[in-house]
């Protein structure tokens, strides 16, 4: 019960403080820009009378760019909105009035986590739906396995959210932000190293990339989502930002889920043990 109250208040806070609406407005602006670009490109292809195959591949790649941007926006929004939630409330003393009520600390943390998870899920659903709609209605292209990809991007965001919560029980807001962004950056560059390694058949580079994904699996989950969306033709390209040369396996997805759960347990445990 206490966790649901905290989830509700967290969600209401996001709405009341206009965080959610600002993020959605920024998302709408992005969709408008993306739709305009897709419209002009589709119009150009119609006028130039290019073969449907070329038209399909180029517009599909544009769609991938759109999803890539959505992924980036969702991850950044997740970090920016949640980075202050525990560390900030601990530092300001706001948490004291809550933690002294007859609810367990795990309920406080899980409630807040659920509230943010709901917000992130709504954002990912809206943005994924928006990009998919733009692709279908303006460009006439659809991603493969859009739902699976959306769920994977949601998993990636929840992973980042959980890590942000976990470090928020230890560090100040600023330090927490630096750590989480740093970890995501490490995963990002690790993903590139892995792709380059796979494209150039350099196993040691691939190993470095895999290790970085094990340290922080967020980018690997995006690459799996991207892989799920692509046509088999696009997959055949060995090397480009949006066609995965070395798609992470399902085992990596399972690893990410386990990683998330462990991080959540650590966050709950440490929040429960620390002085407030």
């Amino acid at each position, binding site marked *: 019960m206490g966790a649901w*109250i905290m989830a509700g208040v967290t969600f209401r806070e996001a709405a009341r403080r206009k965080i959610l609406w600002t993020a959605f407005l920024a998302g709408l602006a992005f969709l408008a820009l993306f739709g305009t670009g897709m419209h002009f490109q589709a119009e150009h292809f119609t006028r130039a009378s290019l073969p449907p195959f070329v038209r399909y591949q180029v517009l599909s790649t544009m769609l991938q760019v759109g999803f890539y941007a959505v992924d980036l926006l969702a991850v950044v929004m997740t970090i920016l909105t949640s980075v202050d939630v525990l560390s900030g409330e601990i530092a300001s003393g706001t948490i004291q009035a809550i933690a002294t009520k007859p609810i367990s600390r795990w309920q406080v943390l899980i409630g807040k986590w659920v509230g943010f998870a709901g917000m992130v899920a709504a954002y990912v659903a809206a943005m994924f739906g928006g990009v998919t709609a733009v692709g279908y209605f303006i460009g006439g292209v659809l991603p493969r396995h859009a739902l699976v990809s959306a769920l994977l991007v949601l998993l990636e965001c929840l992973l980042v959210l959980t890590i942000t919560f976990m470090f928020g029980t230890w560090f100040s807001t600023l330090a927490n932000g630096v750590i989480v962004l740093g970890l995501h950056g490490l995963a990002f560059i690790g993903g590139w190293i892995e792709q380059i390694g796979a494209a150039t058949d350099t196993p040691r580079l691939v190993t470095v990339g895999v290790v970085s994904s094990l340290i922080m699996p967020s980018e690997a989950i995006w690459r799996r989502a991207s892989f799920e969306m692509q046509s088999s033709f696009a997959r055949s390209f060995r090397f480009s930002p949006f066609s995965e040369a070395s798609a992470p396996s399902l085992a990596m997805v399972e690893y990410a889920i386990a990683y998330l759960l462990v991080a959540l347990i650590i966050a709950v445990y440490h929040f429960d043990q620390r002085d*407030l």
Partner: protein
Amino acid sequence: MFLGLVKPSDGQALVLGVPTGDVEIRRKIGFLPEDFRFYTWLTASELLNLHGRLCGMTTARLRERVPALLDLVGLTPHREKRLREFSKGMLQRIGLAQALIHEPELIFLDEPTSGLDPMGRRLVRDVIRAQRDRGATVFLNSHLLSEVEITCDHVVFMKEGEVVASRDLRALPHGEIRVSARVRNFPPKAVAELARWSTNAQLDGERLTLATGSTEVLPDILRHLVAAGADVFEFAPEKLSLEDLFLKIMGEDRGL
């Protein structure tokens, strides 16, 4: 520590008969932190409703309690105002209201009058007395000793986390009176008899010191000294306020 915010480094303590940190017992405990901060995007009514729900109160009960508490702390005209528009004094008042929402048996108030004007301070005093009268125990943590003197029944002085002195203020309604006398030929066995009127009577050579709660007993003490055969050269009563007591007990200001 009583509320589970800080874990003890060693040992254990009981609150209302159960170990500190117990979640369920907090249904009977209210707390106002020293620097009350809360989600400033909430209105005063929403804040009380949220705290009430966290305490497990039903909607019907809250519908009754929230307006009553807003009225009690004088915030009814501001019930739909967001906390970000509140002054420090208004935040203290709403903080006090959230501590009382579930009618706790035990209430911890940390510096509840800081930031309040004289009217607000009087309101807090009245609220504390009303809580005491309904049977609740109120722990008032304050450096404003004049407030403590007016409000509390019992006072405990703490220094570096340890109790260094305690006083029953009901026994000292007019403050403590310390007497320092110079006497000769005062039999040590007569010192113990001073307990009828005073506490902590001690004879060190010719110097007799004692404490009492009323000036009314001073003639009786003096008569007792003379009747016991003492030659009295000096008899100097000194009235100590709680602040004087505090300074005597705590010693010099070391910037604590």
